[in-house]
């Protein structure tokens, strides 16, 4: 897990609208296959919303863990 190469970290802590997931969607749409985006979110909803979106869209969830008062979530663009 520590071997992951992060392409870009998106710090969306404190973000409310349009929300951390929207920031991630934006990055993935722009990115290249194989890129890994790490999202930092203080919104508890992200821990559920992000994996759900990733799963539906067919990308890969690398990790999703709580770290103090925020979540650290990494997603790999697979297509």
């Amino acid at each position, binding site marked *: 897990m520590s071997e992951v190469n992060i392409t870009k970290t998106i710090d969306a802590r404190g973000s*409310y*609208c349009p929300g951390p*997931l*929207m920031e991630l*969607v934006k990055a993935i749409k722009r990115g290249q296959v194989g890129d890994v985006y790490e999202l930092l979110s203080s919104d508890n909803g992200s821990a559920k919303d992000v994996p759900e*979106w990733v799963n*539906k869209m*067919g990308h890969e969830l690398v990790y999703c863990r709580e770290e103090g008062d925020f979540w650290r979530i990494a997603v790999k663009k697979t297509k």
Partner: protein
Amino acid sequence: MTRRIIIVGGGVAGTMVANRLAKSLENEVYSGELEVVLIGNTGKHIYQPGFLFMAFNEGFLEQFAREEKYLLHPKVNFVMDAARHIDVDRKRVITGKQSFDYDFLVIATGSYPDMESVPGLAAGGHTFYTPEGAERLRHEILNFQGGTLLVTIDVPHKCPVAPLEFIFMADDYYRETGIRNKVKLKYTYPIGRVHSLEPVAKWAVKEFEKRGIEYEVFFNLEKVDPEKKIAYNMDGSEHPYDLLIAIPAHRGARVIQDSGLGDEDGFIPTDRYSLKMEGQDCVYVIGDATDLPVSKAGSTAHYEADVVVKNLISELKGLPATHRYNGKAFCFIETGLNEATYITFNYKQPPQPVPPSEMLHWFKLSYNEMYWLSARGIL
């Protein structure tokens, strides 16, 4: 010596800041101590919410446009020219014809919907987010005989409630013209609910169900086949349509990218409380041009303008810039052709729509007229 504030962009944000500064510091601008320069690339000031009404034949562009020079305080020096390069190191803005040094800079260059952001979209889809787009779409909407009207939404985009207003207005419109039973209205959204704000999503879904509007979540438009009239979702599924209306991903103004000031989409990294460009002491960023995690909306620009003007005045008077923006936004939401609701929220407080009413609809229509007072810096 004259001090100079340059504002780039004469839309909602730029015009408000220019007018309020000139008005608040009238002594200084009349005595020549201060010069307020507004650089704008168009002589027409357009009220963008009008596009929605144009699309449904409820108004024409002339109604929603004014000459910028007539909206401005007489002491604002309006330079009608495109900014080509913004040099924050040398504190200079270069236009096609001239070069201006500044003491303070306010960047208010807005954002634009990029129909090129998805392959096939420009040829196969419509948008009501530009004046030309709204005019083109009006023809389609008025001549539509039935079939599937598909709405797709990408991020980031301005006015997050306008797509909802659009679909509700379409529902009403086709009911009134008597062909609603032949029109399949389909609304899509990129994430797992129909709006990024949960309370708005919950409210909207109830409305969709009541009105028979279909919706699909987790819809991220990846490409469009304009010949076959098929929209493709990121998950590979195919969605045939007769009329495609897209709110595509927005980008910051070209000059921002050309000047190396923005992120990959052309939005400028901005301190969410002070509204200063990150790492720059003399540069404020306002309105759609920022990368702030707030809605890109005229009302946001309005509240931000209050903060920026107060801080500029403080700084000109040798005081620290202590005013802070709290993320406040306010949006009316048309829920049909005769009813509306509204939401208001900030960085900390979530929105909660109130029950729609005819009165709120009239408020929204009144604001369409009052807007010109806001732009003048009066309201």
